[in-house]
């Protein structure tokens, strides 16, 4: 089962519409191509489980901290109470929260992998995401393994956890700093979208920063910027290509090449 959202009036089913080239494409074909549009190479958001299958050697993933679950420390209510929203998201995605972490192998190389899944509340970081990523970084340090985080997060912080969400940025950063100080390697992979507090913390703290093509990456949202500066925004504004051009990304890598590319880079960044 996939968690692709219904896009612009095309019912969830056999066919789906690509938001980039507007072509109606066969869903199964998209999924078989690791959620990439066969017509224009648009990279759809990818469920964490599929990402694991795409990056790691088959059946090597050992999940960590699967029992960490969110709660509602603020008693936050918007249109619906946060705890109810959580339940709905959990039922929709089959995940407790937006992050999955664990250990696995990439072409025979052991790695620690953390993924945020856009399908769960737009991949926003609450306490569980922060805790899982921090624990993953700590264990990567202990095990002397490369650390890989795949980020995909719409707004960055999770409003419903208020200031505690913001503090996850510092918490994960602290663990990454320790991993770095211990000589550990951290590879950050940015996927569509990586914005706000996620971009302004672990997503851009890698020894190496890779991005998938066409991902939206940045600090402030387009609308906020447009309302503030009242200027036309450049066409490729806040895309992977824009960040590469401005020096914030090392390489843009097509999803089909990601596994090979990551394995190749890891070999340069291990002292063993």
């Amino acid at each position, binding site marked *: 089962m996939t968690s692709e959202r219904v896009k612009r009036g095309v019912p969830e089913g056999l066919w789906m519409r690509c938001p980039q080239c507007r072509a109606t494409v066969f869903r199964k074909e998209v999924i078989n191509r690791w959620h990439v549009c066969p017509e224009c190479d648009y990279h759809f958001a990818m469920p964490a489980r599929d990402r694991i299958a795409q990056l790691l050697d088959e059946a090597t993933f050992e999940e960590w*901290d699967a*029992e*960490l*679950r*969110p*709660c509602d*420390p*603020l008693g*936050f*209510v918007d*249109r619906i109470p946060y*705890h109810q929203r*959580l*339940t709905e998201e959990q039922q929709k995605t089959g995940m407790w929260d937006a992050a999955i972490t664990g250990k696995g192998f990439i072409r025979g190389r052991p790695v620690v992998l953390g993924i945020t899944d856009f399908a769960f509340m737009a991949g926003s970081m*609450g*306490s*569980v995401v*922060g*805790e899982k990523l*921090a624990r993953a970084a700590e264990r990567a340090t202990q095990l002397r393994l490369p650390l890989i985080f795949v980020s995909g997060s719409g*707004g960055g*912080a*999770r*409003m419903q*956890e*208020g*200031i*505690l969400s*913001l*503090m*996850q*940025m*510092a*918490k994960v*950063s*602290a663990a990454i*700093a*320790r991993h*770095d*100080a211990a000589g550990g390697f951290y590879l950050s992979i940015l996927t569509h979208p990586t914005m*706000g*507090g996620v*971009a*302004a*913390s*672990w997503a*851009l*703290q890698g020894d190496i920063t890779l991005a998938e093509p066409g991902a939206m*990456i*940045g*600090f*402030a949202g387009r609308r906020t*910027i447009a309302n*503030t*500066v009242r200027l036309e925004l*450049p066409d490729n*504004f*806040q895309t992977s290509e824009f960040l590469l051009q*401005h020096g*914030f990304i090392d390489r843009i890598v097509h999803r089909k090449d990601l596994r090979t590319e990551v394995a190749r880079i890891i070999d340069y960044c291990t002292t063993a």
Partner: protein
Amino acid sequence: MPAALPEPLPFEQDIHELEERLAQLEATAAGPDGVEAIRRMKRELLALKRERYAQLKPWDTVLIARHRQRPQFLDYVEMIFDEFVELHGDRAFGDDRAIRTGFARLDGQKVMLIGHQKGKTLAERQQCYYGCAHPEGYRKALNKMKLAAKFRLPIICLIDTPGAFPGIGAEERGQAQWIATSILEMTRLPTPIVCVIIGEGGSGGALGIGVGDRVAMMQYAYYSVISPEGCAGILWRVANEETKARAAEALKLTAQDLLQLQVIDHIIPEPLGGAHRDPREAANALKATLKRYLRELLPLPSTLLLQQRYEKFRRMGVFLDGPAATTGLTPATANGNG
């Protein structure tokens, strides 16, 4: 001429009127009857203020934190520190006027002082982007903090920003990148860091200079993951007086809330009604806290300091662990703060 009264906030109209009447009375009243009338009115005013400020809504607090006459970074520099040797260079792009950095002396103790400046006059506000920093501001701050660590000067960060600037240039020059880098480095800079939110603690723009061994808030400051306006816009699609107030309530952004959530260490008391009503008194309270924190932190060896800083942030967050309960979530038993 009596001193000018502070500009009233929406919930202060009756206080303001009474203050005006008192000022008038003080200017005209004479004799023992006049003295008695003034005394009575002062008592009445104090009672009214105490009652009002004891039941402020979170949104009211946001308005105080943003009050145009609220003391800013440079006001506190003037009132608290013996000198300020401003350092301007970020070594790459330019001098961001929304973040000021430099050497300062706190009763003889040498420190590195970092802070947001919002500006008072229109010209100054525009120059400072109303306290919204660009990447070069965070880079400058980090550059000076590293310098401080080299000579083990303690770092004091006074935070007062609606948020990091949302603009084209800011994104081109790596707003997210430089906040990310600053946060990471602050978690491990081997010198004491004290952070105080003196007004607005706007999200990543605040946290970008907000990682420290001690984090305190002024009583009427706020600190939030998103502005009440932004939150209201997302959740209720429109930011009006009602939804902004609801968002401010929901976000738990007051100093009292943050103390309860164990995100800050201390609330620095302000004069009744806010620091702008008596900046000197607010400055004295801030100074006392800064001095106390430096006294506590300066003797600590760096390894212990960094260990404690790590644990401080490592503990933050609330979640459930262990096997899932049979039926859904049980937030009542939740506590990741352990």
